[in-house]
């Protein structure tokens, strides 16, 4: 997030696109609702009539995967009616002409059939959005989990720069991160192209710095593989050993049959986890790990805040902290790493070797965490980025994008669009929530969420078990007939092994980020 949760409750305008906040980020949504109750405006763009719609001034019920068409149409109106921020555009951005040329083609009238929203409603939304500055734009996986995910992100950034909503309190582009420490895993360099603190592996001076700090030579200058490429590599044997730490890929990656074929092709699979699961079933070695409250450390939340995690109880049996396991393995390769606790790792290595974290040390985050960038020990941390319109690269670059449809669209054989997401009472593959007393009582099985109109047409009664099939597989789940869902759409999650949406989802990826299109594939629904 460029901005912070602390800004939610006094923001004056929100544009929420592809984010089911009340279920996926419930506490964040409470501050947004507080703001709305205090008079803030709220525009929700979502194919579903999700909970926030109840609080919205405007619901743009777009068709699945039509985000760029909608965003470009909004920008068309904003430029046509001169509602943009000319000073910000002039002084802080470049590429406005190219953006103007692109969105000149995307009038609301032209985009309306793609979005499934009337042109006048798009015009009204553009005017409302431009009428209050700044606006906070928030998105989640509804934007990124598409074959055009990267372009979706570029489009929301284009919109916020056009309106001058960047670099100010209560503005910004704010992706709410899914996992508790997905921000941190990125920050820590669990990415193929960067060391921690986003320091590029391609940069020789960066490699030299880490070679000196770690006492090693020959760090690789070639960016590594992303998960889908690793999985392909298992099949073509380019990847011979695969180490999976705390992920149940067999349930969470699209197209389970394909994923399980890939995992079963691994020559040597190491699983490091807290439970046996569908993925460890393919492992050759399983390493038992300490969980959340069984070790000290830090998580970094969506707003870049590094928070402390503390030990409350001991790990069961011989389970060990994960950092210890990696250190022990390094020892067997002849490397003795000096840091011997989470605090030593953070203070002596993570903070010391990354400028953005340099000012964050354990003694400074005893109570509330600090938000990076935090370059020195007296720095208060950074609540919002790009202050006074200063972007990392200098001027913010508009990147015009053109709408492209999902890789798989509904047809005669598979006439419904399946979109997927998370439900309130569970978390991802239920590794944790499935083992907490009471949560299964609140939600005990997956459902096929379907509109009343489609259910009636197909003769499907509420709670009736139906068969949902795609080109990849089929599941049998109960129908949840709900007005949240528009006609022609089905909505499911991957919380449960049985009825897991990933038996159906399409392993088609954004060409650059390799994010899978979990949000759109074609399915058939039948009575059994």
């Amino acid at each position, binding site marked *: 997030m460029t901005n912070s949760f602390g800004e939610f409750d006094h923001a004056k305008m929100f544009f929420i696109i592809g984010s089911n906040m009340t279920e996926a980020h419930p506490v964040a949504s409470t501050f947004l609702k507080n703001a709305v109750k205090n008079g803030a405006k709220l525009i929700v763009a979502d194919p579903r009539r999700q909970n926030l719609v109840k609080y919205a001034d405007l619901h743009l019920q777009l068709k699945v995967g039509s985000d760029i068409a909608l965003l470009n149409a909004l920008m068309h109106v904003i430029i046509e009616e001169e509602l943009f921020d000319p000073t910000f555009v002039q002084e802080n951005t470049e590429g406005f002409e190219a953006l103007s040329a692109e969105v000149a083609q995307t009038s609301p009238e032209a985009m309306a059939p793609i979005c499934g929203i009337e042109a006048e409603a798009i015009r009204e939304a553009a005017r409302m959005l431009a009428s209050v500055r700044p606006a906070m734009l928030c998105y989640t996986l509804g934007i990124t989990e598409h074959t055009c995910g990267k372009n979706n992100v570029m489009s929301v950034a284009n919109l916020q720069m056009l309106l001058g909503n960047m670099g100010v309190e209560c503005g910004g582009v704010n992706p709410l991160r899914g996992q508790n420490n997905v921000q941190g895993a990125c920050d820590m360099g669990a990415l193929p192209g960067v060391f921690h603190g986003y320091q590029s592996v391609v940069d020789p001076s960066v490699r030299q710095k880490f070679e000196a700090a770690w006492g*090693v030579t020959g760090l690789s200058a070639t960016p590594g593989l992303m998960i889908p490429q690793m999985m392909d590599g298992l099949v073509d044997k380019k990847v011979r050993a695969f180490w999976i730490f705390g992920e149940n890929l067999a349930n969470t990656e699209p197209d389970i049959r394909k994923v399980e074929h890939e995992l079963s092709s691994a020559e040597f699979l190491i699983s490091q986890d807290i439970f046996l699961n569908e993925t460890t079933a393919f492992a050759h070695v399983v390493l038992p790990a300490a969980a959340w409250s069984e070790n000290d450390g830090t998580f970094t939340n969506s707003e870049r805040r590094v928070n402390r995690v503390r030990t409350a109880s001991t790990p*069961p049996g011989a389970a060990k902290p994960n950092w210890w396991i990696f250190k022990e393995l390094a020892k067997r390769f002849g490397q003795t790493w000096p840091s011997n606790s989470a605090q030593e790792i953070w203070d002596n290595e993570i903070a010391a070797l990354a400028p953005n974290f340099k000012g964050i040390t354990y003694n400074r985050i005893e109570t509330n965490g600090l938000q990076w960038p935090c370059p020195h020990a007296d720095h208060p941390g950074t609540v919002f980025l790009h202050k006074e319109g200063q972007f990392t690269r200098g001027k913010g670059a508009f990147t015009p994008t053109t709408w492209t449809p999902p890789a798989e669209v509904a047809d005669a054989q598979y006439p419904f669009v399946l979109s997927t997401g998370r439900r309130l009472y569970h978390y991802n593959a239920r590794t944790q929530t499935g083992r907490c007393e009471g949560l299964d009582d609140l939600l005990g099985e997956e459902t096929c969420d379907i509109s009343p109109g489609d259910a009636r047409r197909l003769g499907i009664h509420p709670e009736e078990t139906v068969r949902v099939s795609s080109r990849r597989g089929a599941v049998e789940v109960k129908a949840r007939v709900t007005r949240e869902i528009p006609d022609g759409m089905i909505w499911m999650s991957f919380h449960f092994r049985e009825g897991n949406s990933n038996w159906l989802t399409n392993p088609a990826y954004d060409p650059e980020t390799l994010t899978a299109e979990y949000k759109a594939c074609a399915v058939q629904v039948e009575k059994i």
Partner: protein
Amino acid sequence: MSDGTLLINGTTHPFKPGQTILEVAEEAGIAIPTLCHLKGTTPTGACRLCVVEVKGARNLLASCSTPAENGMEVTTDSPTVMSSRKMTLELLLSSGNHDCITSGAGTDARELFNARAEAEGHSEHLCPSWGDCKLQEYALAYGATGTAYPRSKPTYPPELKNPMIIRDFSRCILCGRCVQACNEVQVNEAISYGYRGSESKIVALGDLPLGQSACVFCGECVQVCPTGALVDKKSKGIWRPWDVETIRTTCPYCGVGCQQILHVKEGRIVKITGDEEGLPNKGRLCVKGRFGYDFIYSDERLTTPLIRENGEFREASWDEALDLVADKLKGIIAESGPDAIAGVSCARSLNEDSYQMQKLFRGVFKTNNIDHCART
């Protein structure tokens, strides 16, 4: 409403426009007891415990809902105020199942508890909020015993149907903090006041069990309940305030990063509350953050390294498992180069863990084939 100063107990205090007497007193460090007041929400003035004497006013005024005015002279501890509060407490104690005060048995909640437990031979039946109850705390402080008025019989049976929250209406004092928390803090709009007069009750959607209402089990109502009317089902009878230590930590679920207080008894988490001072959540939690902690105690936890042999896992020591991994990886690197190894880190685990894993892959194996599930 204007900027100015007022006198509280003879001392001058400045105030900002819109501040209530209670807020000014709190800033000045002058304690005024409250039951219904919930910071940041609309004052209801329901409990009348925060009454103060204001010179010139005909009656005592509820400090939580009375705006400060320039030149006001407030007394927070006059005999009239104290006796009014005591009477309020007596009325509240008699309004339901508040049997925790024993006349003449002292004012320490824990000692009272122990005495009762000893006298009655067990303690499970004693109020689950004993020692963590504002009503009990004030009753003991003001010398209210609950014997001044005849005790009302409970009008409604408790709701035990849902898996998370016990609603014991016999201990509800109708202060409305839960209603404020649900409607104004979390804005889930699941509960409200229902019925009238002596029939009054906090209801969910036309008086249905929580599970059939709009309730999302965030438990904010439990956190703000000043009595034993709303209780965590998982903690009931296990958690007592005097036998837990509290540890602040960060929630393991979504990317909001809520700050939690773990209540730990004998090395085991028995309850979680939100840290009111913690950013970004300011005390708020959701259903997973508040109730989703016991997975760590599951019998299914992995407790030893496992090695696959003839298609089955067998238990192994750390040395054996790590030696096997190291030997295998060394062999593969020697034959096929470091890029024949790939790893996925965990977006659920610690920063320090992900740092170590990428350090292992980059600095030891010499490959950048390290990723995690940022795309899921």
